[in-house]
Structure formats: C-alpha cells, structure tokens
C-alpha cells in the first residue's frame, strides 16, 4: 500500500509539473510581447524593462521554466500588478470559496447519488427504478450553468428564498451555508445523476457476483448483503469518477461563481482574463490544477484502501 | 517418423516479475521469472506429442514460444531447417504451423461470420480460395459441420461447433504442424470424443505432426504417441505414451497419473497424494525443484539439479527414478 501510494504521489507531482510547465511554455512562446502577457497591459515601459531583465525573458525557454518553478517553490507566485498585491494572496484567499463550492457539490452528489443508485439497484425494473433512471439521465444532461441560471431566476430573483449575490458573512457559518446551497446544488445536480447511474450499474454487476451468492447461501440478511457486501464494492467506481469529476466541477464552479457573484478561483480567473492579468491567471491555473490532481489522488488512494486488489496493480 | 520436424534446445522464456518502480530498483536477475527453464525436445515428422502438466507448468507458454507469440530469452528452436530463434519469416512459418487455442468460442473473432473465419487464412496469406463460399463449405464439411453454419457468428455456436470451426480453419492451408492448446477444454465428455476422433482422422489423412497441450490425462492414450510431462517450466519425463502412463519413472509423473480418479467404483488404486501446491515461479526450490513435494526425496535432492537423462526411447529428470520393475 505504501509503495502504491508513493508511486501515485510521484505521478501526481509529475502531472502538475508538466501541465503547468506546458502552459507556461505556451504563454512565453506565443507571438507577442511576453511582458504584456506576464505583466498585463497597464505596466509601464520602465516596469517592463526591469521585468524583462529580472525574469531573464531572453533566456532559453528551458531556463525560464526552471526559474519559474524556482520562484514558485520559494513561495513567490509573482505580483498582481493590477491591484498591487502578491498573486499568492489573491489566489489563496479565493481558493477556500471554490473548495467549499466543490465539496458542497460532492456532498450532494455522493449522498443523493449513492442513495438513489443503491435504491434503484435494490428495486431494479420497478417503476421507481425507471423514474430514477430517467431523472438521473435528465440530471446528467442539464448543463450546470443553465441550472445555475434557472435556479437563480426561480429561487433567488422570483421566489427570493435564497440570496442572489456573494458568499455570505465571513465567520457566520449559517450565512455561508445559506449562500452555498444554490450554487453547489447547481454544480452537483449533474453529478447526482452520474453517481446514481454508476452506483446502480456497478451494484447490479456486484450483486451478480459469485461471492454475493456465497454470502446469501450462508444466510446473511439481504440488507447486510446489499449494503455491507455489495455497496462497499459498488461505490468504488463512483469514488473514482467523483475524484476525476472534480475537474468538471471546477469548470462548473466558474459559472456558479459568476452567476451568483461569488468570490473564488473561477471568478478570479475570469476577472483576470478580462483584465489580461496574466500572473494571476497563471497562479489560479496552478492552484486549480494542483487542487484537482490532489483530489484525484485522494480518490485513488481511498479506492486502494477500500479494495485490496487495486494495490497489487 | 524418424526425422525431427521441430527441435528445441534449452529454450528459456521469461516473464517480467515486477513492474514500475520495484522493477527499476530490483537487481537485474530478480526482474524476471523463467516460465520455461531450459526445455529440450524433438517432435518427429508425423507423430503426436502430448505435453501434460498442471497450471503453472508452462505448457501453454511452450506452445506459444514455438509459434513465436512469445520471445525467447535463450535457447534454440528449429522448424525443419529454419532457425525460429533468429528472427525468421513468421508470416510464412505460421502458414505451415497452425495453432488452436483453449477457448473454442473466444478464439474466434466475435464480429466475423463462420465463413469469414474459415477463409481468414486465405486472406492473411493472399491465397486464392477458388470459389470462396464453396471452399468454406468444404472445409467446414471436413470438420463435420454443414454449410448452414456459414453465416453464423461465434456467439451462436456451441463449444463443440466452435471447436470444429477452429479445426477447419487450422487445416485450411494444409499446415505441416498443428499446435493444439487444450483441444478438449470446455467440452462435455459426450462431445469430446467426436473432436478427438476428428483430430485423429485428419492427422491420419494429412500426415500431420501435432503437438497437443493438455491436462486431461484420460485422453492421452487415445491421441498421443509420446508424452512430455512438465513441472515448473521444465520437462521432468518424456517418452512413449503407454510406457510413461503404465510405468512412470519420475515421482511427479507417478503422482499425477495416480491422481486421476477412475470412473470405476470397484477398482481402487494405490494413490500418491502430494502435499502442498506447485510453488510460484518467483520462489523456485533449489536443486530438484520437485523435492519439497516429493514423497521419495533424499537429502541431496535439494542440492543438485537433475539432468534430463535419456535411456532408450524415454528420458527422465530425477536423481532416484522409480525403477522399471516395481
């Protein structure tokens, strides 16, 4: 297990390194003045000249990549020249909001999705199973930003049940959760359907396995067989899918943050792109990719912990 | 009959034992295990050699190595006068050396009709099949299936029918050698006889040389001229089928033959029950690799590796073989 974990961590680090380096390379090699790209259009000529010298922009690409990572690893993610603050500060104050959003969505999709899926499999081919099936596919199909817009329109603008703007009062948990409910629901809805489908399918497959027959032949109760023996195996693919799905949720979070005017990585990147504030874009990308890879890694390790067969591979 | 058509000398096939980081950190000789560990044998023109052994003995690996599906880590294989260990023209060799696989249905491409499957060798080797449908029908008929099957898909065939398609296809281009991996696997006894009769008839008619891989000891007498018994990637005994079955000299052969329950409740044979299981390839015992399970092992068996020693038509690899008169 330890060996397996070690290999996965190394792989995850390599992915973050290559993904970010590739992006950095594209940015500095694309035609155009890299100082514009890296400092934003508002930088003064003096600032540009100084930056060009300091950053070694005339060095070979490889050297620049090494220097870039050197700065990142020493904690320097550059400056947000538009608002005159370190990029790290901007990014790390936005990250918790996005994390709350994503974890909220995972909470929805895991609880509702696993329940619906297990329930469907348990009552397969009943009309309830059929309804759940159609609903799940409907959920999967609904584009998250349309769900966000519709729920904003219905629950916030028209019915006024939920707030339209912001992330709630700092320090006030209830207010935070209140502001979180709609946006995280909008992101999570599709995943509820997704998880339900996967859990149902893998549950049915698991229930057909010989060892389930063995368990029943030994007189274990139906409930115990289904929820202890089968579900334990059947949620493994759902864990994996949710881990990888965080990439998709981060994309959805951009819309949720913009539609509900929440702070977060998504709206930070969006604002920075409109302002051509590339150091911030780069920093946000780094954090977003790092966050995603970490979550996928955790899902992988959880899977391995739950399924001893995985560790051997 | 006296001329070898296949000659194997000290054939070694290795599999990677470790993957990923472990493999990089392990010493070079621990990265691989030997699935075949020095196999030498000859197959005479026109004979049927059966290779028997339990799972993990390497018998399937041997068939695949002969056909070039697995690379050799050492040793030589000669087919007629072609050196198969020196990058030969496999395309042409495989036309002369047909192979049948274990799973009768699974070894047929699932989205092709029986007609396409039987004609596949012609397509592969750019041969004209005359009138394709007639040729296919004739080949099927030779294998005991009528032309109604031409448009079926593999999943619509029973095990016995699929096996016949496999036979028809193997014989399509008149090979010199047929390698058959477990030809009776997955077949009921009532069907098994038909398939073996078919193989015997075809062999007699075409003067084929066949190598049959099997763990089914009951069929040996009826199909094989000679048998080779394998254990942990080595041949422990080889020779004419009746001699080996009636008077095994290697203790493993003896145990294997006695382990086969007879369908006759009145005869109860002396049985040698071996303890334990075949060890993993990663932990080969020292000396004679059979010694930890051998009922007649002596002290030095764990120290010295026995050689396969020829005496008359048979050979055995044991320091203290069972004498012929007992």
């Amino acid at each position, binding site marked *: 297990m330890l060996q397996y974990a070690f290999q996965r961590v190394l792989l995850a680090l390599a992915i973050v390194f290559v993904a970010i380096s590739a992006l950095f390379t594209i940015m500095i090699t694309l035609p155009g003045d890299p100082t514009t790209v890296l400092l934003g259009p508002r930088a003064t000529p003096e600032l540009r000249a100084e930056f060009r010298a300091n950053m070694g922009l005339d060095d070979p690409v490889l050297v620049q990549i090494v220097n870039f990572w050197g700065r990142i690893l020493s904690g320097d993610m550059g400056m947000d020249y538009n608002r005159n603050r370190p990029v790290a500060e901007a990014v790390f104050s936005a990250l918790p909001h996005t994390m709350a959003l994503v974890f909220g969505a995972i909470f929805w999709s895991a609880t509702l999705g696993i329940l619906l899926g297990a329930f469907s499999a348990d009552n397969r081919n009943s009309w309830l199973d059929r309804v759940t099936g159609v609903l799940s596919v409907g959920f999967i199909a609904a584009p998250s930003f349309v769900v966000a817009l519709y729920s904003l329109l219905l629950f916030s603008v028209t019915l006024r049940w939920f707030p339209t703007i912001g992330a709630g009062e700092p320090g006030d948990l209830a207010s935070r959760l209140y502001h979180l409910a709609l946006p995280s629901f909008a992101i999570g809805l599709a995943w509820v359907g997704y998880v339900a489908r996967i859990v149902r399918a893998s549950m049915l497959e698991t229930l057909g396995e010989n060892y389930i027959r063995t368990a029943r032949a030994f007189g274990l109760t139906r409930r115990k067989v289904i929820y202890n023996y089968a579900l334990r195996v059947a949620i493994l693919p759902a864990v994996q899918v949710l881990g990888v799905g965080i990439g998709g949720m981060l994309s959805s979070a951009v819309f949720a943050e913009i539609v509900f005017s929440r702070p977060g990585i998504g709206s930070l990147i969006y604002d920075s792109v409109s302002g051509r504030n590339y150091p911030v874009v780069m920093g946000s990308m780094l954090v977003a990719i790092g966050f995603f890879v970490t979550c996928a890694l955790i899902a992988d390790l959880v899977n391995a912990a739950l399924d001893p067969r995985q560790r051997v591979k | 009959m006296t001329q070898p058509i296949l000659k194997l000398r000290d054939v070694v096939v290795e599999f990677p034992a470790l993957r990923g980081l472990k493999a990089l950190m392990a010493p070079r000789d621990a990265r691989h295990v030997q699935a075949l560990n020095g196999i030498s044998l000859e197959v005479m023109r026109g004979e049927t050699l059966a290779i028997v052994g*339990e799972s993990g003995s390497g018998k399937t690996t041997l068939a695949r190595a002969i056909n070039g599906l697995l690379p050799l880590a050492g040793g030589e294989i000669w087919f007629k006068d072609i050196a198969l260990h020196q990058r030969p023209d496999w395309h042409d060799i495989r036309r002369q050396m047909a192979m049948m696989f274990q799973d009768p249905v699974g070894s047929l491409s699932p989205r092709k009709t029986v007609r396409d499957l039987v004609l596949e060798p012609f397509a592969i080797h750019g041969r004209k099949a005359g009138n394709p449908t007639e040729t296919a029908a004739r080949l099927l008929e030779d294998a005991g299936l009528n032309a109604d099957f031409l448009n079926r898909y593999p999943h619509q065939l029973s095990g016995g029918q699929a096996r016949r398609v496999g036979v028809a296809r193997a014989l399509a281009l008149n090979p010199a050698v047929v390698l058959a991996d477990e030809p009776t696997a997955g077949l009921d006894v009532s069907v098994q006889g038909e398939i073996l009769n078919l193989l015997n008839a075809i062999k007699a008619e075409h003067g084929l040389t066949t190598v049959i891989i099997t763990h089914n000891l009951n069929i040996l007498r009826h199909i094989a001229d000679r048998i080779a018994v394998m254990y942990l990637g080595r041949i422990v005994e080889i020779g004419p089928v009746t001699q080996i079955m009636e008077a095994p000299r290697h203790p493993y052969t003896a145990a294997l033959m006695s382990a086969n329950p007879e*369908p006759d409740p009145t005869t109860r044979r002396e049985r040698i029950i071996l303890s334990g299981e075949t060890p993993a390839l990663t932990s080969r015992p020292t000396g004679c690799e059979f010694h930890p399970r051998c009922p007649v092992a002596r002290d030095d068996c764990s120290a010295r590796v026995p050689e396969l020693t020829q005496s008359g038509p048979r050979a055995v690899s044991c320091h203290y073989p069972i004498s012929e008169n007992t």
Partner: protein
Amino acid sequence: MTETLTVDGLTVHYATREGALQALRDVDLNVPAGQIVGIVGESGCGKSTLINALLQLMSENARIAAGSVTLEGEELVGAPSRRLRDMRGRDISVVFQDPMTSLNPVLTIGRQMHDIQYREKISRAEKTRRAADMLGRVGLPDPVAKLDAYPHELSGGQRQRVAIAMAVLMRPKLLIADEPTTALDATLEVQIIDLLKELQREIGCAILFISHHLGVIAELCDRVVVMYAGEAVEEGPVADVFNTPSHPYTAKLIECDPGRMKTKAALLPAIPGDLPDLTAPPTGCIFRDRCDKAAEICRTSPTPSAVTGAHWARCHFAGGGRQ
C-alpha cells in the same frame, strides 16, 4: 435410513422471451443422512438450477412450478424467507465451483468467517478462535495469519480450502458441493476429495456432490443421480449404476469417458445430437432423439422403473421393463 434431503417432483421454469424454459422437470432425489450422494450430468442438465432451488436462492425469472424440497422433514418450498435464511449456512451450506470468485475480494478471510457466525452468541475472540481452528483443520498452513489475508493473496487450492472451512464451520446437516474440484489441478483435486471424505466422517453431515467428472463421483460417492436435460434419469448406489447402467444415457456417458479405456481406441465413442429445446421439450422420453434403443413406446413418458432395490432408471427398457 433417515433422509436428510428429499426432493420430490421438483419442477422449475424460467421465464424467457421464447416462453417458459423448463429447466427442471419432475426431479426426485434423496440424500440419506451421513451419505455422500453424487449428481452427474453434462452442461445444460440443470445442476445449477437444482442447487439454487435447494438453497431457495433463485434468479428473478425462475419459478418453482411444482414439487417439494424437504430438509429433515421440513418443507423449504414456500417457507418464510426468515426461516430459510436461518437454515442457510447453519443447516445447509455450500461450496461453489470457482474459488477465485466465490469469496468476497474486499474483505479479509477472518471478517468473512466472522460474518457467517453472526447467529452464535459467543465472544469475538471465540469466533476468531473457531475460524482459525477450522482453517487449520482443512489443512491451511499458518491459519491464524490467514485470517488477516485477502482472498487474492491465497492460491486457488488454498481458497477452495477456505471456502470448505466456511461451509463446514457451522457443522451443517447437508453440505452441497458444486463442482468444488473442477477449477483445480489433478493433484489438488485428490487432496480436496480426501479432505471432504475426512470432514464428512468427522461431522457426519450428508453431502450432495455435483460433478461432471465420473471418476470423482465413482471414487467419492455412496449413491449417484444421473441428470439429463432437466430430468433425473437414473439413481442408485454408485457401484450398481456404474456396473449396470440402466438408462441408455448413463450407459453412453460412462462409455464416452476415455479414462476407462486402457488401450488406444480406434474411434472414441460420443453421443451425437444436441440437447432438446427446453422451452418446448419433446413429449415422451427426453433422451429419445439421441437414443439407439428408441422405439415407438418412447413416445410416452417413462416412469422410474426399479432395477434392483435402491436403483432405478427412467426408461421403458430398464430393469424388469419390456425388453
């Protein structure tokens, strides 16, 4: 002689698109207390349906159309599911064919052996001790350590021993063994057969041993039931059935086994033809289409005719029947 298991007129149908598939038709069989009864038959004979029916664990589209299954006099067909669950694993238990897939891959051996003792009012430590004892009893080296192992960490033979240990842990009255040696090599097969014999003697349970391997049946069983296309066609003491097979199918089946021919056969016997379509089984004798002896009378259904005392065959020509 008391019967541990009695199956009487058991008929099971599967609902399929082509209509009702009559997988078992009017099957009778008895397993006397303390005996080993073999069931032999080729694929499609209804062995697995029979096991599922005995355990009352049938797939959703299966239905018991008629007949009864009694375990020590207690009717299982239609029994409340709570009662059935109570009996499974305690009075009646089973070893399945494939040791690779019949154990739960994500739970340790110890956990699985704990779970099946859920009815016992004993301490955890005691349950662990019993599990380890039984693992040792079935011949696993280092049984205490094996409790913490996952199934994939064991070899095929070891896994089958674990499965047997689980099956006999509660000292059942009836042990069903569904081709327990088919997936194993010959030298392991004889080890398992020996083990089953020993355990049977020790626990005194009756064993219903399903196999397609005539040699294993001949060696292990006291009585044997021959099945073909969903019917029990012959039953009797092993020696009688093997020496004087009285149903043409049994005779053919024994004849086909190449193991009994000690010299090279010019032509190996086989049974030409295919199984009948069980959604529309032919009237009369089920084996009629493939039988050499078939005559006009075979268009009517044969009833079991006694050959000798405990040996009968479902054939018009069997025993004292019209020859």
